[in-house]
């Protein structure tokens, strides 16, 4: 083998207690392996992964001058690193080790002892032939940039940013709305404790603004992401706010002075339940406390004609500046936490619930604003005609658990529906009916909350609402009042159809991915789960990691979850990012693909195939170039290169062909 010298292989077969030895005749396999070319030591051992097992490797390397190791045991996923480290400790290159999986691919799926013993021998022969061709490889180190980017300034992004900033890292927090706070800032009380959302959120928001380690960019969006783990270059577009954040003192006099005496445009923060002016601040505690000018509706910006009363009142501060242009900032970060959140299900998609058709049908988020003391009605729940509702229905699972819309359970709706039932009852004394499919109350204190609300006299009707229609009334009697709607559902507990007329209907809309989550996914080169939420690397063991190293997930962008879980996950994402950054360097596994530069014809076939965008076309040389730090060693480009000019360390053709020959050469 080219320059590899004399090959001296050590072969080890692990009993794994009785996991392997219970089926395979390990002694026979070891005896057979000892007869294979190059094998100078062949042993069976109870637990190869144990300390004595690893010691055995080290001793044999020294004693028998071994330069290749084959371990027949479990999956390389479990112990490849263990045996590589042991080999390294014994003084040979760790990539001279080859594992043979005879447990997951063997005794756990076969019980025929004779067959499995033969299969173990075949696999042993393939590996012993393969290691001949192994070349020494080295892990490369890539330095990691110390700063972090957090995308999204809801509670997840806020918590992650504060955690990392407190640990001394410089954090860029990018939020596309004019303020941070996200959905949580719109909520009134939070289940199950009924503490006020703003009271617990706003201190964290102001802490973000005050933190010396956080650069907060609101009204900003990530435009472009380049690079790889530890070395991301991110371009952030800072949209034109027309109010200079450095000069504004947050006096809000410009809003007062606007030529529009009253709000005229839908207020996004109050989900359209109130009107705002073209210069506005989403809510009084917004961070930063700097107004933003809506260019589409501002007379100066859209028509070019205005008395500019806002500029006048701002006076010498000169904070209002119509000349401001969008600005592009390029930052370099080592890690990214994505906390881009969710959007509520669009209730108009289910026409039979009557949202948009009947004025007294609301979404849950609208109710959050209505019950909120700083909301458009000052916390009074009233119908559009001013009356206080006497009967209110709340429909759970709107858009969720429904094969026509979203199949998933949105996880928070049962509990927030109970919370809204409680709040509406508390504020109006109305009779409240909750229509649910299944009452889902897992988690700390949730069942207790359910018990509490159910004893408060809320009617809990187990049944999916089939129809909502206007109640037939004598028109003369209506007096300009908004008519009631009838909720029709089968009460599955009593087995009867119920028709309940109510003054107000609240739709508990579910959570779904942001409308542009696909763009974000592409930009950061991560994957999505079936529903479109971002995909974690492992649902149990790597829940905040993604398949792209250095990109972490926090909050509802990964899937529906409540505030406690969001905060916990944000903390986890922050600590993963910190663990990465504090290491300072990132070690690259050497099993990467590489281009034979002389031989590459520059046909570009490989470039679109790379799932990790690790291949670029080098315009000057007209050749493909693989970024080792991005390459995950999947081998797609290697297999597809039409001229065989991409190869892969540890998966060289020669190694693979030898392995195949070994497998097929029945002894």
């Amino acid at each position, binding site marked *: 083998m080219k320059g590899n010298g004399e090959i001296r292989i050590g072969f080890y077969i692990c009993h794994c207690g009785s996991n392997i030895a219970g089926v395979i005749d390990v002694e026979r396999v070891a005896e057979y392996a000892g007869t294979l070319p190059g094998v100078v030591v062949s042993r069976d051992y109870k637990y190869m992964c144990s300390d004595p097992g690893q010691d055995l490797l080290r001793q044999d390397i020294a004693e028998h001058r071994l330069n290749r190791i084959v371990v027949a045991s479990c999956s390389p996923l479990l112990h490849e690193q263990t045996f590589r480290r042991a080999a390294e400790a014994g003084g040979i290159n760790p990539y001279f080790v080859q594992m043979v999986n005879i447990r997951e691919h063997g005794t756990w799926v076969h019980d025929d002892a004779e067959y499995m013993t033969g299969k173990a021998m075949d696999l042993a022969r393939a590996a012993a032939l393969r290691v001949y061709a192994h070349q020494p490889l080295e892990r490369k180190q890539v330095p990691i940039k110390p700063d972090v980017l957090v995308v999204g300034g809801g509670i997840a992004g806020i918590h992650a940013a504060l955690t990392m900033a407190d640990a001394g890292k410089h954090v860029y927090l990018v939020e596309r709305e004019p303020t941070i706070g996200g959905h949580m800032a719109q909520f009134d009380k939070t289940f199950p404790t009924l503490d006020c959302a703003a009271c617990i959120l706003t201190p964290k928001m102001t802490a973000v603004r005050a933190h010396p380690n956080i650069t907060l960019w609101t009204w900003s969006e990530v435009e472009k992401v380049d690079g790889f783990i530890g070395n991301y270059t991110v371009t952030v577009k800072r949209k034109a706010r027309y109010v200079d954040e450095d000069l504004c003192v947050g006096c809000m006099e410009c809003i007062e002075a606007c030529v529009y005496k009253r709000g005229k445009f839908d207020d996004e923060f109050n989900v359209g339940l109130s009107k705002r002016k073209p210069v506005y601040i989403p809510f009084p505690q917004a961070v930063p406390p700097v107004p933003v000018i809506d260019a589409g509706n501002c007379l100066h910006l859209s028509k070019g004609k205005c008395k500019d009363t806002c500029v006048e009142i701002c006076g010498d501060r000169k904070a209002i500046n119509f000349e401001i242009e969008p600005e592009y900032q390029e930052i370099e970060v080592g890690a990214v936490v994505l906390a881009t959140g969710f959007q509520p299900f669009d209730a108009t998609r289910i026409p039979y619930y009557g949202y948009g058709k009947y004025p007294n049908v609301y979404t849950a988020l609208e109710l959050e604003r209505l019950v909120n003391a700083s909301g458009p009605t000052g916390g009074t729940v009233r119908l559009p005609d001013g009356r206080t509702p006497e009967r209110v229905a709340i429909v759970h699972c709107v858009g969720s658990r429904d094969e026509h819309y979203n199949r998933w359970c949105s996880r928070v709706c049962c509990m927030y529906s109970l919370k809204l039932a409680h709040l509406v009852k508390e504020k109006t004394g109305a009779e409240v009916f909750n229509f649910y499919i299944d009452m889902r109350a897992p988690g700390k204190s949730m069942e207790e909350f359910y018990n509490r609300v159910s004893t408060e006299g809320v009617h809990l009707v187990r049944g999916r609402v089939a129809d909502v229609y206007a109640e037939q009334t004598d028109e003369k009697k209506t007096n300009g009042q908004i008519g009631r709607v009838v909720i029709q559902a089968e009460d599955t507990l009593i087995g009867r159809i119920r028709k309940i007329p109510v003054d107000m209907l609240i739709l508990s809309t579910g959570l779904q991915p942001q409308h542009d989550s696909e763009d974000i996914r592409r930009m950061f080169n991560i994957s999505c789960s079936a529903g479109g939420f971002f995909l974690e690397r492992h649902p149990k063991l790597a829940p905040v990691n993604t398949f792209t190293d250095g990109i972490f997930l926090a909050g509802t962008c990964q899937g529906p979850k409540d505030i406690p879980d969001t905060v916990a996950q944000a903390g986890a994402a922050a600590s993963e990012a910190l663990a990465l950054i504090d290491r300072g360097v990132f070690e690259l596994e050497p099993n990467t693909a590489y281009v034979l530069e002389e031989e590459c014809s520059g046909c570009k076939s490989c470039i*679109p*195939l790379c799932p990790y965008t690790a291949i670029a076309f080098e315009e000057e040389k007209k050749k493909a170039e693989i970024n080792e730090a991005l390459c995950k060693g999947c081998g797609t480009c290697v297999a597809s290169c*039409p001229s065989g*000019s991409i190869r892969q360390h540890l998966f060289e053709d020669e190694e693979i062909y030898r392995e195949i020959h070994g497998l097929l050469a029945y002894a």
Partner: protein
Amino acid sequence: MSEKPKIGLYWCASCGGCEESVVDLAEDILGVVEAVDIVFWPVAMDFKRADVEAMEDGSITATLINGAVRTSEQEEMVRLLRRKSAVVIAYGSCAHLGGIPGLANQFDREQILRYVYEEAPTVSNEAGTRPSTEHRFNGDRATLPSFHHAVRALDQVIDVDYYIPGCAPTPKLLKQAVEALLTGALPPKGSVIAPDIALCEECPRKDSKPEDLHIERFHRPHAVMADPDTCLLAQGIVCMGPATRGGCEALCIKGNMPCTGCFGPTSRVRDQGAKILSSVAASIDAEEEADIIATLETIPDPIGTFYRYGLPGSFLRKSLSQSS
């Protein structure tokens, strides 16, 4: 006077184009004839098998054999020439990879004979007569070579020292090879005497190839007017260039026709057809299986497209016998 190197040329299963390509050396052939003694060239000069048999083993400096091996006669002759020659060069696609005759490996021997002697529309053979290896008539005995069950590339029959690729090889490559022979500056045994880099490298349309092809349907070259400046793959025409060894100076492309792969794969590839297939298939702009199949069905003859010159030497090699 020192003896001139002896050269032999021989023709097996091929079209004769390779022989033509030797003549294509034009006036340069005079220089070659000057420098060497041609000791065997049945197509052009009157030599008999007995003349070769009479030569000393290893006495021919080099023999260029074109064509694949299908019959017993071809096999005997190449074995004989191997014995008599110091160097054997597989000349042209058929000797190198199996070539167009190798496409016959899609069918078994019986299928071929049945079609050619019975079923082909131009055949009238009511008695169902088939060629036999021996026939006696009035006390005379006539023989024919036997027809092997498969077509083989030259190196599947005898040891081959070098390969000159192409259908047919270009005069430039032949000249290079002859010069190498005369000067003794020979590459390592087993080399293909052509650049070891895919055709795209020297393709005049290289810069027009996009990174992502997004092929919605394939077009056959005769069915469209191909833009003469744009990468043919980008126009949905299967071009074997990315998987084919360069060295032809993109002759077909310059004639606005796609590369069909006659130079074979680079030294790093074992199966040219599989390679281009995986690359081309990955360029299809479809997500659903039905759409993918619809796009692929616009390639009416996948083996003839992707394995036009290399079926016998590929992993596919030949189809299993279909007749009983």
